[in-house]
């Protein structure tokens, strides 16, 4: 239903501009005005590749999204005075309009005629077809391609592309705006003759051109002055790659960088008092959970899992570890995901209740288990230490086992890890995507072995349900089941924290947590 309504909406260029400008901020005029300003940003890592179909780390993705455009993109809305992506609504980008057939399996996209790649070549349907082929053949994004259910992509004249799907699939239009589905000038890549050329070069239509990129130190972006859409306000962007969070903090404090990402929560606290710095901290759909292997005793008993969930010092985790840069997680899906409900979730920090549940499970004297801790995230380490201390109070011994990231991921894949903490961000902000990967019995990331046939049935039914409201009802039932079974103890939902000099604004948050430089602007410079 929504699909069809959406697909009949063909927004013109003016409308898109209007929408994005309103969404940006109150000073919408400044966002659209080109300036000579340059922006310096401190990232934590240098990125691995510029290939849109292979990128899967924050810095690579950010570079891709600056240099490339997609067929369609997310609408924006304002929440608490701040612009955020409105993922339920998809708006035109390189495609100026699209239509779906009645069955919802054939989509016809009409392309803009005024778009050129950075090298001056005009973008046509041929480029779209070949870009999709590149995505289908990629190692990384082919997975999304499959999830979107795409069967074929064909050109229908120079300015129109027809995409057919296996079934009706509500995820299709949700996936298209992702950076992985960027439109690439495949001629440029083919001319270079090197299959890895796209990993180090860009051939897009996007608002910025990547001038230089050295993953060890920095990248420089220059404004694409012939950009087909709203010209970015910032002329040049310098991305600095600084591994140490406290160093990023220092540079921001001194004003050497305009924006710093991935600061430690305790540092964010100290920044609140420093002048000239603005903290933009807002909820995201990035969650952290404490998973207990449902197939490994004693966690095969739901009572034991529930007991653990009553012994976790939730408030302490939020205040002592995350310093307020996180909120309680209260369902298996993030609170910002459509269809989120907390029904069936009752856990609070209550040691007496935990003890009672343990006794009911026949483990009144406690037990001991192995907890695998992946390295690289200081908050996980701190959470583990605090949880360990609480569990000790109910007679449960939690033996922490440290693992380097690579070993940790390998261990999880074996599905034998007894318990662990892991984070998750669903880039497609949809409960079907989220639950399908994490909690259905066939979910590829269901490392805790949670199996509930009822949940599987609900999920399968929802996947082909076209009506959004009916779908959400099914997902609500699914959450109730999970919340009662407690395969995980829910820890928290991270805030996305962007610390910026007060001269910078325009930041809009997206489910992928990436910064779109083209939306930023800088005052008084």
């Amino acid at each position, binding site marked *: 239903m929504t699909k069809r309504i959406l697909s009949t909406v063909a927004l013109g260029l003016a409308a898109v501009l209007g929408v994005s400008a309103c969404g940006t901020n109150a000073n919408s005029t400044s966002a659209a005005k080109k300036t000579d300003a340059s922006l*310096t940003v401190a990232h934590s890592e*240098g*990125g*691995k*590749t*510029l290939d849109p179909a292979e990128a*899967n*780390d924050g810095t*690579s993705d950010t570079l891709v999204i600056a240099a490339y455009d997609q067929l369609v993109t997310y609408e924006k809305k304002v929440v608490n005075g701040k612009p955020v992506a409105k993922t339920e609504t998809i708006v035109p980008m390189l495609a100026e309009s699209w239509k779906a057939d009645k069955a919802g399996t054939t989509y016809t996209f009409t392309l803009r005629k005024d778009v050129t790649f950075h090298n001056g070549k005009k973008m046509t349907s041929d480029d779209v077809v070949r870009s999709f082929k590149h995505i289908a053949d990629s*190692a*990384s994004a*082919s*997975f999304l391609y*499959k999830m979107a259910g795409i069967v074929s992509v064909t050109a229908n004249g120079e300015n129109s592309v027809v995409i057919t799907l296996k079934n009706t699939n509500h995820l299709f239009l949700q996936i298209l705006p992702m950076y992985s589905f960027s439109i690439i000038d495949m001629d440029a890549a083919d001319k270079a003759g090197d299959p890895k050329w796209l*990993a*180090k070069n860009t051939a897009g239509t996007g608002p910025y051109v990547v001038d230089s990129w*050295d*993953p*060890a*130190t920095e990248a420089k972006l220059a404004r694409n002055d012939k950009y087909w859409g709203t010209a970015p306000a910032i002329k040049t962007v*310098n991305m*600095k790659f*600084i*591994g*140490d969070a406290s*160093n990023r903090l*220092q*540079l921001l404090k*001194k004003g*050497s*960088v305009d924006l710093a990402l991935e600061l430690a929560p305790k540092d964010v606290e100290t920044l609140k008092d420093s002048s000239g710095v603005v903290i933009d901290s807002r909820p995201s759909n990035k969650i952290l959970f404490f998973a207990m292997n449902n197939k490994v005793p004693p966690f095969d008993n739901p009572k034991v899992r529930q007991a653990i969930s009553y012994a976790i010092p939730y408030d302490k985790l939020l205040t002592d570890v995350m310093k307020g840069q996180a909120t309680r997680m209260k369902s298996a899906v993030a609170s910002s995901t459509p269809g989120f409900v907390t029904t069936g979730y009752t856990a609070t920090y209550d040691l007496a209740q935990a003890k009672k549940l343990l006794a009911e499970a026949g483990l009144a004297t406690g037990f001991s288990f192995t907890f695998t801790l992946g*390295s*690289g995230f200081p908050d996980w380490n701190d959470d583990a230490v605090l949880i360990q201390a609480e569990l000790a109070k109910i007679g449960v011994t939690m033996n922490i086992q440290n693992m*380097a*990231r*690579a*070993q940790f*991921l*390998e*261990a*999880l*894949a074996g599905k034998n890890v007894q318990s662990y903490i*892991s984070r*998750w961000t669903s880039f497609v902000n949809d409960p079907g995507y989220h639950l399908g*990967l994490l909690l259905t019995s066939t979910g*590829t*990331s269901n490392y805790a072995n949670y199996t509930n046939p009822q949940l599987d049935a609900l999920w399968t039914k929802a996947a082909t349900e076209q009506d959004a409201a009916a779908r959400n009802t099914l997902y609500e039932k699914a959450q109730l089941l999970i919340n009662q079974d407690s395969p995980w103890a829910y820890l928290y939902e991270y805030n996305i924290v962007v610390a910026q000099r007060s001269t910078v604004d325009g930041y809009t948050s997206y489910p992928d947590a990436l910064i779109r430089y083209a939306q930023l602007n800088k005052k008084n410079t």
Partner: protein
Amino acid sequence: MPFVFQRVFSMIPTLAGVVVGIFLITRVLPGDPARTLAGEQAAPSILAKLREHMGLDKPLWQQFVDYTAGLFRGDLGYAWHTGHPVAEDFATRFPATVELGIAALFIGVIAGIPLGVLSAVKHGRFIDHVTRVISLVGASMPLFWLGLLVIWLCYSQLGWAPAPVGRLGDDVQPPTHITGLYLLDSILTGDTMALGNSFAHLIWPALVLSVGAIAMISRMTRSAMLEVLGQDYIRTAHAKGLSPTTVVSVHALKNAAPAITTIVGLELGQLLGGAVITETIFSWPGIGGYVTKSIDATDYAPVQAITLLAAVIYLVVNLLVDLSQGMFDPRVRHG
């Protein structure tokens, strides 16, 4: 000359052993490079594709053959975690490590040798004891701790040091690339701004890294000097009425030179090891941080390449030290 050939030739089995050894060690490491690259959300189909793409689906012997064949072609492989060929990553990072290592060695020499000479000349006296203790303290310092203390004191508290991030401040452009050593390049191109700035960034990690070298060099110098000072000809020189300064600087130091050269050479290899930790702490964009990241990501090619590089450096330094000793002391050849 045959001696040189023999020595070079004898390095081959050792190097071959290192190549095989590190290949096996990386393969034994738990952790799948494809999974690490793909991240926690990766589906099995992606992993299979990635493994194929990375050549990990081939049998082990095939991977080894490919790897060694690559080595003979001068191909060090591909670093998946940076998305660049290892050789390219080396080209951008190695100069930074070399600059840091040379600076630390330089500090080690100019501080270590005078300390050692002083200690030997004042043998058994108070100053000797002080120097010996200082060098032992230096040798006992955990670099990761010392580095953090320097950052705390000189940067956070006193503000003497620039932010411990990289080789240059943000507002300074790197000097025109000639050698890749910023200090040298900025002198060559007359770039005073880059010179001052890169010096300010270099000096702190170099000082931290040099502490071990100072300790080692001063102790070696002391012992070499003591041995020489005990020789008959030195007593003769004293007896002839030569000034103590002349005796020490002209006669003794000259004769102690081979031993001191040895230790300075060996110290170079040592510094490269210490650079791993120092670079991590000072966010220095060299090989050290690259090693840690490569191991974290179980990225085979760079780990193998770095190990091989370190082994080659170790063997070549030893060879050069041997050869220089041969020059100073012909007896060694017959040893």
